[in-house]
């Protein structure tokens, strides 16, 4: 009896210990968020003690490492947006087209082949896309548009676009597959063609899911680093010409980190200020994507 009691007590203590450990594990994700916000913003606050906020957000020159130093982030921001827009032009139609095909048209057997292929495309490291942009896409662009520079926004944005096609495709497909079959059958029973069912019934019904997929994909494009570091160039100049060399926010962060940056220098703080801005932009976009999806849930 005594032994039994002991075993039980030990068992209870064991259960309690395990739960405590697991709770601690779960807490690590909260700590991660706190640490991200804290590290980015504590350095950024110090950064803004040395650089005026107005200059940072409205200045058109970005030369944080060269005298005379300028800290206008607009060239980087415009560079980032060019990549994001270019990538969207590629990824949205091709991703949505693939999603409609897979969800509404493709026979089961074809789906079974195409889906893993798209997964492979999604699993390719971004460094490989960067290599592809530089050694394959850029030469093609140069052939048709001879004024294209070796490093240019267009080539990088095409590669980023290709990289996020699978993301747009699979999230949009999920949204379309979530629509009950009864709705499709209702439309077919009225004599609709597949085209009409897909474009007039399914896509509108899945619109918020598709919209959220787009927002998430664009957010991903904004945060993409290695492709732009390889193929887009390192020229933080304010330009809207996609065939010219540019620099994005992420490209700047990588570029400066390749050198040995010392803690406490203005370069170090600049990286964190740019990183904080990148974090805020992607965070807001992710929240927007979630809000779109939540609205869509309520409709069902």
């Amino acid at each position, binding site marked *: 009896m005594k032994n039994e009691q002991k*075993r*039980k007590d030990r*068992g*209870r203590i064991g259960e309690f210990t395990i739960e405590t450990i697991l709770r601690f594990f779960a807490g690590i994700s909260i700590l991660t968020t706190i640490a991200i916000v804290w590290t980015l913003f504590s350095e950024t606050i110090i950064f803004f003690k040395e650089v005026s906020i107005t200059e940072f957000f409205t200045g058109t020159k970005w030369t944080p490492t060269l005298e005379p130093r300028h800290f206008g982030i607009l060239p980087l921001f415009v560079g980032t947006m060019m990549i994001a827009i270019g990538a969207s032009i590629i990824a949205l139609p091709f991703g949505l087209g693939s999603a409609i095909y897979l969800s509404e048209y493709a026979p089961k057997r074809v789906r079974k082949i195409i889906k893993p292929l798209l997964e492979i495309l999604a699993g390719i490291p971004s460094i490989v896309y960067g290599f592809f942009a530089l050694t394959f896409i850029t030469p093609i662009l140069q052939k048709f548009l001879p004024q294209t520079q070796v490093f240019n926004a267009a080539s990088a944005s095409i590669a980023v676009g290709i990289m996020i096609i699978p993301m747009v495709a699979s999230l949009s497909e999920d949204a379309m597959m979530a629509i009950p079959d009864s709705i499709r059958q209702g439309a077919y029973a009225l004599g609709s063609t597949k085209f009409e069912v897909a474009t007039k019934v399914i896509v509108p019904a899945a619109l918020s899911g598709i919209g959220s997929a787009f927002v998430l994909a664009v957010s991903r494009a904004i945060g993409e680093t290695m492709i732009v570091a390889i193929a887009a160039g390192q020229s933080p100049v304010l330009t809207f010409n996609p065939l010219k060399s540019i620099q994005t926010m992420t490209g700047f962060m990588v570029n400066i980190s390749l050198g040995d940056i010392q803690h406490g220098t203005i370069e170090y703080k600049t990286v964190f200020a740019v990183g904080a801005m990148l974090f805020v932009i992607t965070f807001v976009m992710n929240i927007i994507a979630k809000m779109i999806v939540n609205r869509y849930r309520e409709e069902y």
Partner: protein
Amino acid sequence: MEIKIKVENLTFYYGNFKALDNISIDIEDRKITALIGPSGCGKSTFIRTLNRMNDLIAGTKVEGTILLDGKDIMKNEIDAVELRKRVGLVFQKPNPFPKSIYENVVYGPKRHGIKNKAQLDEIVEKSLQGAALWDEVKDKLHGSALALSGGQQQRLCIARCLAMQPEVLLMDEPTSALDPIATMKIEELFETLKKNYAIVIVTHSMQQAGRISDNTGFFLNGELVEFGQTDILFTKPRDKRTEDYITGRFG
């Protein structure tokens, strides 16, 4: 007459919904107690309070006392985990683990610290014999439990309980997912099991209650309307509602 479980003034809530209202009942040892009533009347909820399975559902509340051999199981005199070992539960749908037959039976004993291979083998044989399954599966003990028929799976689940050497067996509509022949086999099994255990069985079939049980309780809307010896309850019900139910006027 020896009382195994004495329930006094048991009231049970799911959130604000009162699922059981002031139930008092005596479960006799080595007898079969059947609980009947229309679906949603609280009979399943009731037997799940007897081994505190309802603890696993959030937002429930229990009042009253449940005495197992005179000890209050609600007052932590008995640990819920320990209690479930002594009061086994067989579910409506057979739910063997996706493991071998052997592993299913030794699942509980192993986790209660029995490691000796010979001892485990003995438990497997005894439990499967106890559940009248041994002869059918003794040559494929290491085959998957999911390959068995529904009736065999349910008897395996009974064997899994027996392996814990329980004192009480709770059965929650144990044959409702089975065909008549499998049902008959399990009913025959009850006859032998009751020599060693107190059995409480929830059933949707009055015929089954009449065939196998010694005592029967009739539940309606969370209330225990009537409780007594099966033959008396079925022939001379005291309550009008019981009479209506067993004569098939509702439910």
